[in-house]
């Protein structure tokens, strides 16, 4: 029993093996650890009902449980206070119903994003979201972390795409909310509550999404300039009548780019390209490089130790954020990079030495909070995470969030300690 997970009395693992099947319960390895917290067992139930039963069993046995999809973002959040059992959704990977004429899909939580998109593309449709690592990330994983990408400029984030969900609760209940129609106000919108809850309220086993058509044609443009001039251009584009589907600012030491993407008919795109050149004035446009629209993913690669943060500000504050990151990184001799989406959310990456990263993180956090924004440390050396809430200072809604958590998971079975304010 690892020390970090506390002392536990006898656990009858064969009972769990009976629920999920002997071959689907295994001892955890070092690779299963979450932020250095060792895990004891990994279970892969084959049905939503089995997953709910396994969760109820673990809850009754007093175990701490972390749900896991593709495991691509397992390090997000604070280190868990304890984790005895990883409940994997790997076998819940089916696309249950693609009602293409209704433009909806029912999918299991363990389905990989790329697999879902492939199925949808057969009918010229898509889940209008381009999250991180789609080949490996699962639907449950992107939902629990509220991941998104460049398409949110036009289609919003997961909260705007999910229309129904089924979740397993620690008491073993399987609860549905929403449904398979895009317009539905019957009852509370629990799908939104679970989106971005980092698996602290229940385990998502199924989701229903509204879909969009794949674009007929697409074209991307890039502008180069200073962060200030590009921030001005970004605001001018947002204030124009252009109907872009991507609007992204990329910046690093000595270079900055603004990428714009138009989807639609050839004639519509051509007209908009002309208009944007008028808006841009002296800033010349070139075709966006092929990898521009995956730069939110590419920014995760690089030298270590590194600090990956997600910031959120008002769109008019991007240039100030770039200046801040440059100043803070410079003071600690760190390399830096920023990739931000026009709606206001972005990633900032710093690379260099651990003490420098720690100092930079504290300064960035303080300054962004002063600006009215937020800064979450998504990935960094575990030593930096310890004694630091990666989510930031709690808001006045924190007591309410704690009460929500207590209602759904009164014994703190799910992902204890990993969410805001130690939830």
């Amino acid at each position, binding site marked *: 029993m690892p020390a970090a997970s506390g002392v536990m009395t006898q656990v009858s693992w064969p009972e769990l093996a009976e629920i999920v099947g002997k071959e689907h319960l295994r001892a955890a390895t070092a690779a299963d650890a979450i932020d250095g917290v060792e895990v004891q067992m990994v279970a892969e139930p084959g049905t939503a009902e089995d997953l709910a039963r396994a969760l109820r069993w673990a809850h009754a046995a007093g175990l701490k449980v972390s749900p896991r999809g593709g495991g691509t973002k397992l390090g997000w959040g604070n280190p868990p206070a304890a984790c005895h059992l990883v409940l994997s959704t790997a076998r819940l990977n089916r696309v249950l119903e693609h009602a293409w*004429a209704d433009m909806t899909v029912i999918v299991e939580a363990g389905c990989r994003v790329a697999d879902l998109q492939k199925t949808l593309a057969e009918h010229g449709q898509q889940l209008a979201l381009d999250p991180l690592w789609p080949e490996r990330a699962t639907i449950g994983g992107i939902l629990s972390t509220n991941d998104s990408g460049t398409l949110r400029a036009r289609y919003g984030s997961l909260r705007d795409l999910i229309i129904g969900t089924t979740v397993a609760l620690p008491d073993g*209940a399987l609860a549905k909310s929403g449904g398979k129609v895009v317009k*539905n106000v019957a*009852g509370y919108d629990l799908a939104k509550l679970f989106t971005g809850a980092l698996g602290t309220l229940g385990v998502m086993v199924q989701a229903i999404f509204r879909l969009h058509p794949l674009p007929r044609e697409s074209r991307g443009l890039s502008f180069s300039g200073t962060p200030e001039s590009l921030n001005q251009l970004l605001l001018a584009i947002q204030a124009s*009548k252009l109907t872009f589907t991507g609007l992204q600012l990329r910046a690093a030491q000595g270079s900055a780019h603004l990428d714009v993407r138009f989807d639609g008919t050839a004639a519509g795109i051509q007209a908009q390209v002309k208009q944007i050149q008028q808006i841009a004035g002296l800033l010349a446009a070139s075709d966006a490089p092929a990898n521009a629209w995956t730069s939110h993913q590419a920014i995760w690669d690089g030298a270590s130790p590194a600090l990956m943060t997600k910031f959120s500000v008002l769109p008019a504050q991007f240039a100030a954020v770039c200046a801040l990151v440059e100043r803070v990184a410079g003071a600690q001799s760190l390399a830096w990079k920023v990739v931000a989406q026009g709606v206001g959310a972005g990633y900032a990456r710093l690379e260099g030495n651990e003490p420098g990263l720690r100092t930079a993180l504290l300064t960035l956090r303080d300054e962004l909070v002063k600006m009215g924004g*937020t800064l979450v440390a998504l990935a960094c050396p575990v030593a930096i995470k310890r004694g630091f809430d990666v989510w930031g200072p709690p808001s006045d*809604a924190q007591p309410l969030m704690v009460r929500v958590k207590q209602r759904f998971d009164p014994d703190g079975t799910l992902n204890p300690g990993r969410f805001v304010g130690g939830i």
Partner: protein
Amino acid sequence: MEARILNEFRAIVGASGLITEPEQLSTYECDGLTMFRVLPLAVLLPTSTAQVQAIVRVCHREKIPFVARGSGTGLSGGALPVAKGIVISLTRMDRILEVDLPNQRVVVEPGVINLNVTARVAPDGYFYAPDPSSQVVCSIGGNVAENSGGAHCLKYGFTTTHVLGMEVVLSDGSLVHLGGRTVDRPGYDLPGVFVGSEGTLGIATKVILRIVKKPEVIQVLLAAFNSTNEAGAAVSGIIAAGMLPAAIEMMDNLAIQAAEAAVQANYPNCGGLLLVELDGPAPEVETLMEEVADVCTKCGAWEIHVAQSDAERARVWTGRKAAFAAVGRLAPAYIVQDGVIPRTALPHVMSEIVRLSSEVGLRVANVFHAGDGNLHPLVLYDSGVPGQDKLAETLANDILRLCIKAGGSITGEHGVGEEKKMFMAEMYAEPDLETMQLVRCAFDPENLSNPDKVFPRPRLCGEKPGVYEPHPLEVAGVAQRF
């Protein structure tokens, strides 16, 4: 109500902010759904967040249930007062507090009228997208409570898409801020839960809205078909072609007649009328409009007309938005329903509605947000004929059951309120409803904020979720389960 409590209320809102005379109270006895009426003990009209807090603190201390109310245009009885409770009317909190054009944010008080937000930002080329048909009178606070939609939510989304955050007075009088001006704030998406909670989680006293830039070009096409089934096939064809119109609306012959009589919208007299609105860059709208016309022709449209001017487009929409009220010209009374079905179920559900309607001998006019499958069947009846109101209610309920059976929802935008709460148990299983109640108990454990709405039976929040255990109040014989 005891004089000491009334005095306390008067001290908070002043004499002009407190209504206790029965004849004045009767203004508040119902909302847009007039078949349910309850006289509240008092109506309070606060002018500030601090006043709302002070009122709610008194309610909390005295265990007086309260119902927040905006303009009272709701169609499901969500703002119906509760007996022995008070109504908190937010109409005097009607200031637009902040307009931030570069970041496309507007901060308003809950009593601000929906259309006034657009009016304020329109000179700069922006609009507030949710456009319920009542938008000239309904309030943002009410929109937040109901998660209001409108004709254009097919493309632009609902109230929840356009609300980034809110200041809320919880049922114990405490003040919390959910969400904020920036997106993806850490923590649970409580704004997502609060929007559409029908006043059961607290009272919003400030709302942060997102505004949208007006499109370059807007065009609306009218297509006349012999039947709603043909029109429905055209809707599927448009969607299948990969288009996302700003709106697709459908009206049947009875609804067309009503709209014509009321506002002379110049609709063709046909069995199924489709309104398709496209917006975006001019060359794109032009191309796609031709495709829409093609699809309609192939599906049997015998008249296709694209509105040629802003004035004509406005008239087309006036007809649609006036349809509910216009139906009042066809019958002395009507019930409007708000069921949703998957688009592909439309032909089946329509023929079932026709069958049910002829079985009971009552007419049903149909107005749909066809793009998203939101039906608004209007069951016409004469309350002067004994028993007809019951027949109408039964028919309306049967239509809702059709929607549930088709895999849809009992409400797309009007809310559950008082009217449809018993249907929640038909649409959802017990664990689903129990789970929703967990949210309610976290926000309002004493069930004071708009109690007895939305759910078929209120949860006693002392209960442990899961296995049934009798509540102490039940044991004491003070409360009973139904």
